[in-house]
């Protein structure tokens, strides 16, 4: 397209005009051409309609994804973590009070702080939702995960591209088998997938933060934890307490 004759460049330039990429004299020239050429005006309208179709389709898809996820939420059983969360929050509040009062205990806690300890405090293995159709449409990775065959989850290579959900389960399986670096790569891939839903991405963010902690890479862990803590609507907002963030900061300076 770069070596085309000037008249052949017009369709390409029209798309660039549509995309708002023309500036200055190029833009003015194009606007003059459009004003004088009804065929060009028609072509521009056709391109605008095509762009509108893409936007409408994208919006339909995004709303459809939310619809699907909310339906799953309604049908999924209550996660075990819901009850544990309250217990963990209560325990943290009590522990934080003791630490403030007794400096010696605080010092002891600082020196005994470890990445594996902080990870273990905040990690719980992810429990997938109940299989609604008796497992008929369950993939090999999903089945292996549900049956807790975590090593197998990390090695199964399906004949077609891995889905975002499978990547997420693989990430958890890597954490379960003591491979946080591989877990990090899996969760990062989930977050990079345009088709991954909002809930899956929020799950991936939290477990990615834990994987970074386990891998002793505290800066990206802190970035993620801050992001979760600053978003009250985040699925794991209540999991990321101020104390949790402080522990990771302390680990960084140790």
């Amino acid at each position: 397209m770069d070596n085309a004759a000037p008249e052949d460049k017009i369709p390409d330039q029209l798309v660039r005009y549509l995309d708002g990429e023309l500036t200055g004299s190029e833009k003015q020239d194009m606007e003059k051409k459009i004003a004088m050429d009804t065929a060009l005006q028609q072509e521009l309208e056709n391109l605008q309609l095509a762009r509108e179709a893409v936007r409408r389709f994208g919006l339909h898809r995004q709303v459809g994804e939310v619809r699907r996820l909310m339906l799953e939420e309604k049908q999924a059983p209550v996660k075990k973590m819901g009850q544990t969360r309250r217990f963990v929050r209560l325990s943290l509040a009590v522990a934080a009070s003791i630490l403030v009062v007794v400096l010696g205990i605080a010092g002891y806690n600082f020196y005994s702080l470890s990445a594996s300890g902080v990870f273990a405090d905040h990690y719980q293995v992810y429990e997938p939702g109940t299989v609604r159709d008796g497992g008929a449409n369950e993939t090999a990775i999903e089945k292996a995960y549900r049956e807790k065959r975590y090593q197998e989850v990390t090695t199964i290579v399906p004949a077609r591209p891995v889905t975002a959900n499978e990547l997420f389960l693989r990430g958890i399986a890597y954490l379960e088998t003591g491979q946080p670096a591989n877990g990090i790569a899996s969760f990062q891939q989930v977050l990079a997938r345009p088709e991954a839903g909002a809930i899956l991405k929020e799950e991936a963010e939290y477990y990615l933060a834990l994987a970074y902690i386990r891998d002793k890479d505290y800066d990206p862990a802190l970035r993620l934890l801050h992001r979760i803590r600053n978003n009250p609507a985040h699925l794991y907002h209540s999991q990321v307490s101020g104390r949790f963030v402080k522990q990771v900061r302390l680990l960084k300076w140790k």
Partner: protein
Amino acid sequence: MEPGSNFPDAELVAHIRSGSRMEEMIRTIYRLYFDSLSWYVMNNSGNLQDAEDVFQEVVVSFVDLVQKDRFRGESSIKTFLYSLNRHTWLNELKRRGRALAREEKYERGQPQSQPDVNVVIAGRETTNQLVKLMDLLGETCKKILLLFYYENRSITEILETLHYENEQVVRNKKYKCLKQLEKMMDDNPVIRQTMKNLLHG
């Protein structure tokens, strides 16, 4: 506090208009309004699937209107969605040849204080045709066009996501995909006219 339990209209509209926290906003709309709007459909010859399909179209239309700055805010979001929901369902019933006479009479008596909803609703059938059309484009074209025109990613970002050789290759591919879609729409006057209505109101 559960997200969305007390969400001011102005804040919801502002976020939708800017495109920020979009999934959260869509979820909020679902939490706040789905139950009451679906009740209308299910109590007027529809089932749960109908209610879900209609509500999805209503949310799409509402978000589109807000982003095009055509939701004037003269009524509350709740009132506006109710109106969109009713119209969408009535149109669907008409399409199926099952009009609700009392509803039609009610609608004719209503003042037109917001955009004419008939030009902002795509309708289930047209939406299905649009989905099929986009599927015919193929996964690669669909992905590139969505990344650029829906997610507003730059050519550089698309290059990093899809691993093409260089930016010019991405540009060329995008151009070809857009032209292909343009041609397909030319052959589908219903979709073309619907997009025209949605674009120009």
